[in-house]
């Protein structure tokens, strides 16, 4: 697509192997998903090397789209810069519709016939999650396949109204075994942050038989726990103020343990101490230093 003032808008895909459309991976769809794009870049590099060494199974094809939205990333905007729309709220897209509907349509046309689909996603909730595979409960979700990433958790979430226009939801409806990977922070390109999702996807590639790749199988994995919404307890902020967090994702907490404080931004007094309501593990925490009243600040995966 041509732009009035900028270079041509292009979306690049990298194909590996020849044959059945087996796996499609989509990276950044928003301009701040640099982590997701970087993970895809690492995968492209690894898959190039694997293809060169003949490690991709015959008759299987992998498609990697590192970015569906380079324009927003280049101007450091999360959404489409002209009108603020979100490509990941436009699926399955419409080729005669508005600009981001057309982009979504073009992407979806390229990826909808693959057997497996992976989106490197970011949540509308800021902050850090425990690394997990996320599935929407559409009736088409495949939990057993999601376990093949070997990440600590598979989270099966009931769709909210806006989910019906996301890639993950539509991919599932169109019969792709689709999931989203949450394993890092949007703009974190540190090796540590990228290693977890790269390893998980390489494990998946080996586990579903796309590649016979010994080092992929040897990557350490977790005994994946499957969660649904009932397994997670959301803690809302009991006050507005400065959010002072005392733990991190994966931190094991006991019922009654103080895990955060809300501080008065003028005199430093403690407006509220937040105690864990249960024994469990911190699954998600707010990524901002300020909080409003009743804002979700933690999700605790409770122990049974």
């Amino acid at each position: 697509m041509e732009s009035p003032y900028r270079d041509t808008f292009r979306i690049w895909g990298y194909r590996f192997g020849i044959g059945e459309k087996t796996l499609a991976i989509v990276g950044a769809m928003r301009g701040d998903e640099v982590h997701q794009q970087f993970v895809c870049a690492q995968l492209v590099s690894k898959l190039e090397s694997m293809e060169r060494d003949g490690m991709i199974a015959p008759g299987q094809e992998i498609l990697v789209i590192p970015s569906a939205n380079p324009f927003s990333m280049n101007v450091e905007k999360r959404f489409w810069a002209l009108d603020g729309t979100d490509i990941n709220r436009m699926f399955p897209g419409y080729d005669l519709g508005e600009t981001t509907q057309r982009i979504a349509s073009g992407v979806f046309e390229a990826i909808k016939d693959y057997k497996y689909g992976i989106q490197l996603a970011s949540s509308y909730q800021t902050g850090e999650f425990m690394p997990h595979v996320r599935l929407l409960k559409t009736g088409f979700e495949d939990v057993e396949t999601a376990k093949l990433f070997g990440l600590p958790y598979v989270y099966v979430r009931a769709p909210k109204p806006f989910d019906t226009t996301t890639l993950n939801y539509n991919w599932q409806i169109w019969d792709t075994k689709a999931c989203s990977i949450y394993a890092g922070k949007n703009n974190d390109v540190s090796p540590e942050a990228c290693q977890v999702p790269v390893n998980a996807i390489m494990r998946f590639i080996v586990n579903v038989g796309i590649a016979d790749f010994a080092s992929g199988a040897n990557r350490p994995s977790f005994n994946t726990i499957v969660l649904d919404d009932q397994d997670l307890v959301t803690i809302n902020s009991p006050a507005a103020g400065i959010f002072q967090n005392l733990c991190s994702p994966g931190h094991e907490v006991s019922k009654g343990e103080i895990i955060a404080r809300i501080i008065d931004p003028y005199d430093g007094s403690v407006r509220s101490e937040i105690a864990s309501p249960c024994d469990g593990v911190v699954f998600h925490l707010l990524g901002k230093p300020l909080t409003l009243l009743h804002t979700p600040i933690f999700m605790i995966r409770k122990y049974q």
Partner: protein
Amino acid sequence: MIKTIFETDLPVDEQFSIKKNTITNGSGKKRICIVTGTHGDELEGQFICFQLQKEILEEIDMLDGTVEVYPALNPMGIDSITRGIPNFDLDMNRIFPGNPEGTVAEQTAAAIVADLSGADLVIDIHSSNIFLREVPQARINVMTAETLVPYARHMNVNFIWVHDAATVLEATLAHSLNSRGTPTIVVELGVGMRINHYYGKNMVLGIKNLMKEMGMWKGQVDSSRIVEPIVSQGDSVSFVNAPASGIFSTETHNESIVEEGDSLGQIIDPLSGAVIEDVKAPCRGYLFTIRAYPVCYEGSLLARIHRLV
């Protein structure tokens, strides 16, 4: 009487509040509510709220019932020139009916729905966005058309667009209220970030005309200024999307009848001086939307036309 219907603390020394003004007179029990400011970049409703109250208070004895005005459902958005809710990056008109136990945005939405429920009529005023200029129009879902179109006919709008059921947005204020039995009409007029006084005064006239029909207003309304709207039903709207990217240059005004093949404007290239596309009307019809923001990408909405035979 100004009342706060919801308030909460912001992080640093500030109260967030949603306010309404209630004007009551006479013994009539009917209540009409004017709500606006859901999107922070839509300002036409601000003038309408002011002008309506000014005119009612000048003839307060003519009022028989209650008028409630909610000028800012998203006050932080209006104050920061942000379409959505600034702290949440959320479109406020996608979170209704809200949740009294949820986030601040959800609690706000729940308080608004609770306060408006039971009104005889709610008018939810929008003014498009910064990209599109709209003729004064009512937008009504086909499922509520039987109830709402008769109201809308009195509102001095040029156009009534009865949407398909498929286009229902369940999380909107109008859908939430209509599904609870509170009749709610969405009005769109003008363009974002601007106030068109002519449109605003005509809308105030229309609201008073409707109040007269409802038995709430005993004063004079100049009926010669009330227009008979075009009612569009059953998929009779054509969308014109940009066939190419560039600057959309147009001298076409909406509120006009266009013939098939008429030029609606040109997509031009300021660098080369070339005309990239001459955008033509795909059908004969009533032009009720025209693009106001010149920069367009392939696919950007340029115009909407109600097809006429």
